[in-house]
Structure formats: structure tokens, C-alpha cells
């Protein structure tokens, strides 16, 4: 069963990845010549053309693409124009930082959203409920780079509680994770609330109450388990969004992750790095989707995959 699922993953993944390389290649190629940005002011047009030739950029586009794909299949992931070294290690080096930030953000979101959503559901219609809904929407509406800078001002400069940028200790992780986590804690809270409300109104819940089973047991076992599936869906959607999406946040906090690398690579039309970054993120997205399906199966074996 696992093998057939894995097999299906591969079957789906390969055409997607292939299409992705084609799209990215076409776009970056159309974006134009990277050498204009690489050469120093003193260089002449002749110097630039020499560089173009040295990098093989004067070849017809289909040949460039075929060369790239052929190298890819042989494990050669291309050389970064900007760094002058092999592209894959550059990208892989940044991945742990982004994954760490994604995990921390998810944790923040869950820690905020689950209690808030539960509180809102249990006190439906009260000011708690309205407050949670309002704050949830607010969290989604605020631009994350604005939140980031306000956090830096308050906690980094005024109060000096936290380091304002970089990485290295857990303290560096707090503000970036807060910035990203609060953005989707709102969605998650609403979902938790909605799921809980639906479950709480089911007949079997009333039976359980009538039987005298304590509240918290009932809620804990049934409500949360039923909230689990949509939560997993939303979580996986957000993890995917986080993987490549923390671009602006990483830039503001100088967090050395993949997002920051991608922005710089795009600015310098660094084809190899852009391609590898996109491929890595896409592969991870597909992996996350696959793992989500597996988790569904574990939670509820009745679900058809």
C-alpha cells in the first residue's frame, strides 16, 4: 500500500518537475542576459561578449535548455553566476534555516490558534468568540513585512529583549516565527472553531455527555480528532506557502534561508540557483502533499486516497 502510494507520488512528481524546469527556464531566459550585471564598469562590450561566450550564453536557446537538462540528469546542477560556484550546495546550505523557520512558525500558529479556536467554539456568540474572529481576520489582513518591522522596533530596539536580525540562537528565531505564525494563526483558529462547533453539535456528543463522561474527555477525544483532518489540510497548505514564501520576512530579519537567496538570485538572473531553488521547493511541496495524504490515512483509515 505504501509502495503503491510512493509509486503514484513518483508518477505525479516527474511530469510536474519537468514542467517546472521548462517554465522557469523559459522565464529566466526571457528575462535577459545576466552578464550585464556581472561585469564591472570598466569592461567593454568586447569583454562582455567574451564572458557571454565563456558561459555558453550565446548558444541557441533550445541547445542551452538541452544542455542544462542533460547536465541535470548527470548530477551537475549548474554554476551560480553570482557566487561562481556550484549551485546545489548553495541552495541546500540554506534549506535548514528555512525549514527551521517554517517549523517554528507552524508551532507559533498552532499554539495561538488551537486554544483560541477552542475557546471561541466553547463560548460561541460571546465576546470571546467575536474577539477571536476579529483578531483572526486582522492577522490575515496585516502585511507581514509591516508586522516584522514593528516587532523589531518594539522588541529589538526599544525593549532590547531580542536580537534584531541574523540567526544562531533560539532568540533569533522568535520574531521571524512570530511574524509568519501570526499571519495564518487566524485561519487556523477559525478552522479549529468551525470543526469543534460541528463536532460539538453531533448526536454522539450528547450521548457521551448523558453518559456522564467528563467534558474535557469528550471534547479532547472526539472534537479534536475530527478537527484534525481539516487542520492537517490547512497546515500542509501553509507549510507549502512558507517553504518558498517567507521571502520578505527573511530579508527583513537577515534570516539566511532559501527565500532570501531566491530574491537575490532573481535580482541577478542567476539561472542555476533559481532553477535549483524552484525544483527543491517543488519537490518538497509534492513531498508534503504526499505526507499529508499519509497522515489522513493514519487519522481516518476510511478515507479513500
Amino acid at each position: 500500500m505504501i509502495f503503491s502510494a510512493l509509486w503514484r507520488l513518483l508518477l505525479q512528481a516527474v511530469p510536474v518537475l519537468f514542467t517546472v524546469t521548462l517554465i522557469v527556464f523559459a522565464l529566466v531566459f526571457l528575462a535577459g542576459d545576466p552578464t550585464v550585471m556581472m561585469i564591472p564598469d570598466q569592461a567593454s562590450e568586447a569583454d562582455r561578449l567574451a564572458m557571454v561566450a565563456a558561459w555558453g550564453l550565446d548558444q541557441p536557446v533550445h541547445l542551452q535548455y538541452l544542455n542544462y537538462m542533460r547536465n541535470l540528469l548527470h548530477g551537475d546542477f549548474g554554476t551560480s553566476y553570482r557566487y561562481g560556484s556550484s549551485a546545489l550546495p548553495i541552495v541546500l546550505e540554506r534549506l535548514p534555516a528555512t525549514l527551521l523557520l517554517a517549523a517554528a512558525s507552524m508551532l507559533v500558529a498552532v499554539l495561538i490558534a488551537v486554544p483560541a479556536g477552542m475557546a471561541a467554539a466553547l463560548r460561541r456568540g460571546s465576546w470571546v468568540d467575536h474577539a477571536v474572529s476579529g483578531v483572526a481576520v486582522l492577522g490575515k489582513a496585516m502585511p507581514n513585512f509591516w508586522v516584522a518591522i514593528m516587532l523589531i522596533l518594539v522588541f529589538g530596539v526599544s525593549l532590547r529583549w531580542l536580537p534584531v536580525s541574523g540567526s544562531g540562537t533560539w532568540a533569533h528565531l522568535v520574531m521571524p516565527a512570530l511574524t509568519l505564525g501570526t499571519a495564518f494563526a487566524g485561519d487556523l483558529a477559525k478552522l479549529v472553531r468551525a470543526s469543534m462547533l460541528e463536532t460539538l453539535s453531533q448526536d454522539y456528543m450528547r450521548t457521551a455527555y448523558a453518559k456522564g463522561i467528563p467534558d474535557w474527555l469528550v471534547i479532547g477525544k472526539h472534537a479534536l480528532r475530527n478537527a484534525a483532518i481539516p487542520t492537517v489540510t490547512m497546515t500542509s497548505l501553509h507549510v507549502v506557502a512558507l517553504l518558498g514564501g517567507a521571502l520578505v520576512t527573511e530579508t527583513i530579519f537577515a534570516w539566511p534561508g532559501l527565500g532570501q537567496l531566491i530574491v537575490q538570485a532573481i535580482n541577478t538572473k542567476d539561472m542555476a540557483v533559481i532553477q535549483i531553488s524552484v525544483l527543491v521547493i517543488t519537490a518538497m511541496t509534492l513531498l508534503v502533499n504526499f505526507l499529508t495524504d499519509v497522515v489522513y490515512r493514519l487519522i481516518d483509515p476510511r478515507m479513500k486516497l
Partner: protein
Amino acid sequence: MPTSRRIFLKNAAASASVAALPFALPQIAFAAGSTTLTIAQSNDILSLDPANHENNSTQSALVNLYEYLVNKEFPNGKMVFTPALAQSWKQEDPRTWVFELRSDVRWHDGKPFTADDVKFTVERMKGNPKLLSAVEKFRSVEKVEVLGPHRVRLVTSKPDPLFLHNFVGNGGSILPQHAFQAAGSEEAFFAKPIGTGPYRFVEWKKADRLVLARNPQWWGGAPHWERVVIRAIPETATRVAEALSGGVDLAVNIPPEDIGRLKSNADTGIVAFNIARNFGLHLRTEPGVVTHDARVREAIDLAINRQELADVVADGYATATRGLFPPEIPNANTRLTATNSFNPDKARQLIQAAGAKGAKIRFGSPSGRYIKDREVSEAIVGYLQDVGLNAQLEVQEWSIYNARVGSDSHGEIYFWGMGSYTDASFILNMGSLKRFNPHWKNAEFERLAAELPATTGEKERQAIIWRAQEIITQDRARIGVLYPKAIYSVNKRVQFAGRFDEMIPAEQVRRA
């Protein structure tokens, strides 16, 4: 040549006194407190290969790791060469140079530095056209001969008055032949590079930090700092916040608006100093555009209130000018000042006479590439509108902006921040000129460009180079506007006056 010997002697005298400076200052004992120097750069370090980055921030970090044969210093606002790895040098004939190298220098792995390393460095550059510094370094060098373990002779293909500049700056750092060979590949060497500098490599986390540690065997004496950490913080607000909170000792590229906060903060202060950069406008001159008419170009020149730009837009942290090279650069034409350069009434008359009132002018500008670039451009567009031109500002993100330069698709005017050059003769580099002003033609200018390589007399060269700057600014193919200053934040526990070349050698940063 007698002239060059004279230059040499003059330089040697000056450089002897300058070279002694760092060692003449009393060695201040470390007070209690951190022995780590932390510097915040505004760009990521691109590479540990000094010949393959062409980026100031990167070189600023690498000067601690690698060294040059000679150093460039700017005491009293004039450039001199001082000895570094080369103890002395002389020019035997117009095409031949001999360097006497220091014999007490060791690489970070303990092996001795020899003339072989110099030969290796030069030949590596010449043999690899993909290296970014290959366009500017060692182009004129034809042959390198090792005369002894600490003696090397270089022969150039033709007399090169800028020869010494090859051995300082981006791409000029000396690399170890033996270590390259032992590592097997370039990538392997640069994974754990070694140099001769006062600090040795510890680790590099891309886009985060470069960590260096003291090299106790350094030929210049025991280095002051135990560790040097260079962090990349491209986001300005974050960098300033780090400076304020004491997270870094030095932070570069501070915008003028934050100076107040840094000054009023108990632990920080600022330094502002001249750097090798000029803000200028490049104009289209070909037939078919509004700026083809020389009167319109003159009007544009006269419309700009440079002093107001310097005082108000740059908050006083820039020098108004009509020139294209700061006066510290050798052969900069210092007559091109901003005095009497602002005359909007005359500009309006010229526009009327040329029939260009209300003419549309597209003005391209980057945003955030240089401090205040967009603000200066916005102000200039305002000045142009004041004299009757319908100037439209077009701001583009840097990669798009640069591509437009390459494809010659900017409008009538575009803003450019030229920097980090060696000598004002750069203006006569026709190959480079054609990339930035593809349509401008001037017979006298081209004649001067052809004459210069054959001219060796210092005075004669200066006359040609000065005249060239005069022609291009008179013709307004390029209009000089400002020489911006650099502003660094400096924590009060250290002292650093800033360098014209924007390098930050940790050994020149002292404890206060």
C-alpha cells in the same frame, strides 16, 4: 625612465611615513570586554575568491584574509602607494618592473610566501576569462619571471602608467600556489582558503556571516582582535537597529535620517567620509531626441541646484560638483566645481530658444542601489520641470535598470553612480564609455583617447585626461552632480575613520 624613478622616490618617502603609521600608534592594551570585532555590511559576501566578485562589500572583508603587493592610501586627500607584501619596487625600463618581496611572510598554513605565488596569481587570472576581475587586472602583463624566492620581474606588452594598480584592489590579492595545487580544485581551495593576512578563515555561512580569527604569525605584528565577524544585513532598518542595540560595532551605509538617533544613542556615533563614487547623469545625444540639441543639454545642466541637493536631499553628506571623479582620484579635473553652475533663468531661456518647452524627457533612476539615489533623481526631475521640461521619472528595480543600460533602452537621461576606479583616465576607456553612452561622438575626445596610451609624461598625461573630462562635461554627455559621502555607524568602544576605498581592514579599527 627618470620620471618614474622620481615618482618612485617621492612615493617611497611618503609611503615610508604612511606605512609606519599603524605601527607608530601605541598598542592599546585590551580593556575588559569583547575581543571580537563585528562589522555589518549592506551586501552579502559573494565569494571567497578575491578575483571573482567585483563587489566592494566582499573585498572589504577579504582584505583581512588576503593581501596585496602594495596598498593604496589617501593621506591629505591624495593617493599614494605604500609597501605591503612588496617591500620595494622599481621600474627598470618602460615595460619592466621588479618587485622586492618581504621575506618574513608566511601563509596561514605556515609555508613561506614566495615570488612563485605572485607568478601563480597573475597567471591564474590571465588563464581564466570567466573570472570577473580578469577584465581589469593584469591585462597589460605579458610575462612574469621569478628571479629569486623574493624577487619577481614583470614585463608588460606596452608601457602601462597604471601598472601598480594591478596589484591592489579587487583581483589583486595574492593567492598561494602550493595550497591550490594541494587542494586539487579551485572549489576545494576556497572551501577553506588561506592567505597571508592578519586574520585567517574560520567559517563562512553564506548570507549570514564570515568569521575570521587572529593570525598570530602575521608579519605586521600580533593582530588586535581575536575574532572578526562580518555580517551581511542588507535591510537598512535592521542594520541600523543592530548598530543601536550594540549588536555590531561598525555598520556601513547609514542613511542620513538615522544619524540623529545614532548620535543621541549613548553607545554609538557616526563617521562620514569621502569615497570613490560620483553621482552623475548620462544623456542621449543622438539625432531624433530632445537632448540632441546642445542648448537643451546645457539647460538641463544649469537647472540642477546641486548645492540644494547636497545640503537638503543628502542632508549635507555629499559634495556638489560638476566633475566625474572625486579629487582624491589621480588626474581628477578639480576645476569642474559646482560654483555658478545653477542658473535656472538661463536654462529657461535656452529651452525657449531651442523650442523645447514642454518637451517630454524620460528620466531613469534606480531605487535603493545607492543611498538617496531615488530622492536625488526625484529632486532633479523637479528642477527640470521648473525650467519648463516635461520630465518624467522612471524608477526601475536594479536588475531591470541595468538591463536597460545594456540594451540601450533608457530614456533621454539616466542616473548612474560610478565608483571605485583607479585613475581618471578611466574616462578615456572607450570600450566602457560606449556601453554607457553608446551614441556620443566627439572627434577631439576620440583623438585624445588614441593619444593617451602612447603618452608617458606625467604632466602630459594629466593634460590629456583633464581635457577629456572637460570635453565630456562641456558637451553634457555626462553631467556630474554629487560626490556622495559614506556614512558608517561606529560603536564608541572602537575607533575607525573610514577609508576612501571603502575597505574595512580590522587592523585599522582600534579600540577606543
